[in-house]
């Protein structure tokens, strides 16, 4: 199954790690948060969210617990492991470098190109 995300490759994992870094959170809330924060610009297909969560959990970047939500329902809450936090830091740094480099290229003047 290919992931039909419009996000650049690997970005979904980074976004999930970022959201989970704010505190233990369940899958639905992660979907909501991604939707809100990206102001509906980025489409995160919910179908690829759960496989991504399970993959990250399997790789030991996330840990999961069953807990009660504020409405008293049982849900699976994800939180960042130490390994996940380290991963988030390196990925954030490399993302920033990439974004900066892409930004610089985009700012090149048309004169310079001719």
């Amino acid at each position, binding site marked *: 199954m290919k992931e039909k995300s419009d996000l650049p490759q690997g970005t979904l994992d980074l976004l999930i790690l970022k959201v989970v870094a704010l505190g233990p959170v*369940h899958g*639905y809330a992660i*979907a909501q948060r991604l939707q809100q924060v990206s102001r509906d610009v980025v489409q995160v297909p919910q*179908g690829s969210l*759960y496989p*991504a969560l399970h*993959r990250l959990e*399997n790789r030991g970047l996330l840990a999961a617990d069953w807990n009660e939500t504020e409405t008293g*329902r049982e849900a*699976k809450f994800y939180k960042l492991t130490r390994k996940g936090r380290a991963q988030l830091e390196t990925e954030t740094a490399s993302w920033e470098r990439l974004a900066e480099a892409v930004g610089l290229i985009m700012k090149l003047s048309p004169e310079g190109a001719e």
Partner: protein
Amino acid sequence: MDEQLEKELRFHLEQQTAELQAQGYGAGEARRLARIALGGPEQVKESCREARGTRWLEDFAQDFRYALRTLGQRPGFAAVVLLTLALGTGATTVMFTVVNGVLLKPLPYAQPSQLVTVQERTEKPNQYGYVWAFAYPNYLDCKREARTLASMAAWRYGGGTISGARGAEYVDGLQISSDSFSVLGISPLQGRGFLPEEDQLGGTPVMMISRGLWQRMFGGNPSAIGSVVQFEGKPYTLVGIAPENFQLGENVDVFTPLGQDESPGLRNRDRHPGINVVARLGEGISLEQARTELAVIGQQLAKQYPESNTGRSFVAEPLRPEVGDAGATLWLLLGAVSFVLLIACANVANLLLARAAAREREFAMRVALGASWNRLVRQCLTESGVLGLCGGAVGVLLAMAGVTEFVKFWPGDLPRAEEVHLDWRVLLFAVGISLLSGLIFGLAPALRLRRRDLERAVHTGARSVGPRSRRLHGSFVIGEIAIAVILLVSAGILGRTLLRLSSLSPGVDVQNVLVARVALSPSTMANPAGIRAAWKEILENAQQVPGVRSVATVDTVPMREGNNQVSYWTSADLPAPNELPLALATSVTPDYLQVMGIPLLKGRFFNEQDRLGNETVVVIDDVLAQKAFGGEDPVGRRLWIPDAGSPFSSGAASGAAGSDVARVVGVVGHVRYWGLAGDDQAQVRAQFYYPFAQVPDALLGRWSELTSIAVRTNAAPLSVLESLRGAVRGVTGDQVLYEVRTLEQLAAASLARQRFMMMVLGIFAALAMVLACIGIYGVLAYLTGQRVPEIGLRMALGASAQDVLRMVMRQSGIMILAGVGVGVAGGVVAARLLQSYVPGVRSIEPATFALMVGVLIAAALVASFVPARRASRVDPMSALRQE
């Protein structure tokens, strides 16, 4: 796991639905939108499982169920495959069970890896090699000095006559040191072992007996402990029962303390009877460390006792079970049986291959539906693995029955037979070979699945057999035939050997001769005159028994275990001891030639005048005559017998240097002493006889222990046995016959190994041939079945039934010939192997090869004739319509 996933996704959907409802959607609409947003629940779950890496397990379970289901759908196919595999794995498991029990299992003692045997070693080799029997005083010194050895124990053979309420009986026995049990780490079944103070001269006479003798004599009653038993004419107090895993000797019934043995030689460092020594390494001590220390002790003793111990040292080797030459036979048979398994695998591979061709469209469909190539191969392998395991399970059941039969069938006693049973190692092995064979035969159809071919198959729905697959089938058949040829040729060679050997004359007239060892009454053993009188009386009484024609004594009987190798020379100018030729020396009484039916070729045999005091005489056989004297007449010539092993003069006992001289008075025919099979290849074949009456007094006691009587009878020899037993019983009534054999039995037993190998290999070969024929039949039936439209077309174009028959037969002929070619090459190698492992096997005999290959070709042609004829009867019209 799956439940949690389900719950997590449900939670998501419910939350989403609730929120959408809050936004104003109807309940149904909200649920629908939520589902669309999440995507197909099964796909999401599938992706999650894949992300977790648990998918293969679920696939496996699915494939497993599918495999069972498809097998169930075709019970006939499943039965053939399972039976073939069960036979293959069953036979292999039987052989492995035996190999495991006899050769691989550690000894049944605590921490067997710490146990070592210790032997004396000489610097200069004698005719028996570097290893030297251990002297009891040396053992005591080593035991006292060695720090690397936690404990040390010694034993030596000490059988004798035990008398109880049921009369006298000769039993095998061991003299053991007091710590034998503790060294091995075992404890007596009942009572106690020997105390250190009982293991020395003058100790209280105590004995232990085996569980078997305890049952025989006392019915297994524990109150037997403490009772007094007569052994070798002396009263012994029974103190304990030995456990069954005390396995220092075979079938030993009586144990006495070694230290109590009063025989004078035992305490010599030189000219001693020899003992066996076993030791346990200290905790954390390596074999190397122990060897180093033993070498140092050896040097010290050599300094202390230069006369006897110069050049002597001690070596330790890991203690291994005594299995004689059973190892080579067993490995050979395990190799042979794995060939049968290979044929079984090839057959099943062929069947699966044919079925895979039939399932090509199923596979093509799966590929079209998105199954990956890996996935299909995995499915194929799962199916064959299931087949393999099921076949293996049936095979283990067959093996359980087969093992006991095999052990019973083994000629003589299989060493460590009590260890041979199914255990976890065997089960592990069975599971291993089942899976392995599943892999082997499953790989062929799996590898056949090439994506491109499958895609084409979807388009064409093709039923034709590609040349590649025909080649694959063909090579399996060739392999099967080759293996069958190897096994058939091996069995044939053994059969020929057996025929040839059975027709050989052993050099004695084996009919109507009985031989038995005699245990003289312990009371007569006190002085040489008594011993001589006892033997004279035995011969005279035996002669009176009705049905007895003649009787003689003999120490080493042809074709029976035991021999006495003595070096000789034809002048007084002796070469170095290890360059002296050896001959088999046998002491007999004058009637020996008549009893055995050995022809006298020259001169005379012994008479009553050949006794101590008169000239020492020998009679040699024609082999020795030829070797020692070439073409010259040996009668009247002399043989010099170096002192060390001489059975003639009392010099042997006193240790005087020099050699004995004996006059050759006659030449007799050669006797195949080493048995019908072994004699030609034996190292020492030359023989000489010397008169029992000229054995010096000093050796007489020892010689009497070894001497048997040989009786020629008028009728079946065993019919006189009871009256013979009565006649030799003696005045005290405790002289007994034991190890009673007829010469015919000994001659048959000397071929038992060959006969056994031939039978077992014959069974394997027959199995292989049947399997190979089934294979040829199956493949041809399949291939011609696939070619029906083609054949129909040919016939429509004018080919006759004869042409079609010829065409199919040619196809099978090519496979058969190729297989035979490979098989004959393999057969030559197998023949060499047999030659080096089985005595009596001659080099390659073309006639045997031709015969066995002929049998196989005939069988293979018959097997291919059936499908060929069916093909020739194809109705062209209906065949073409099929297209």
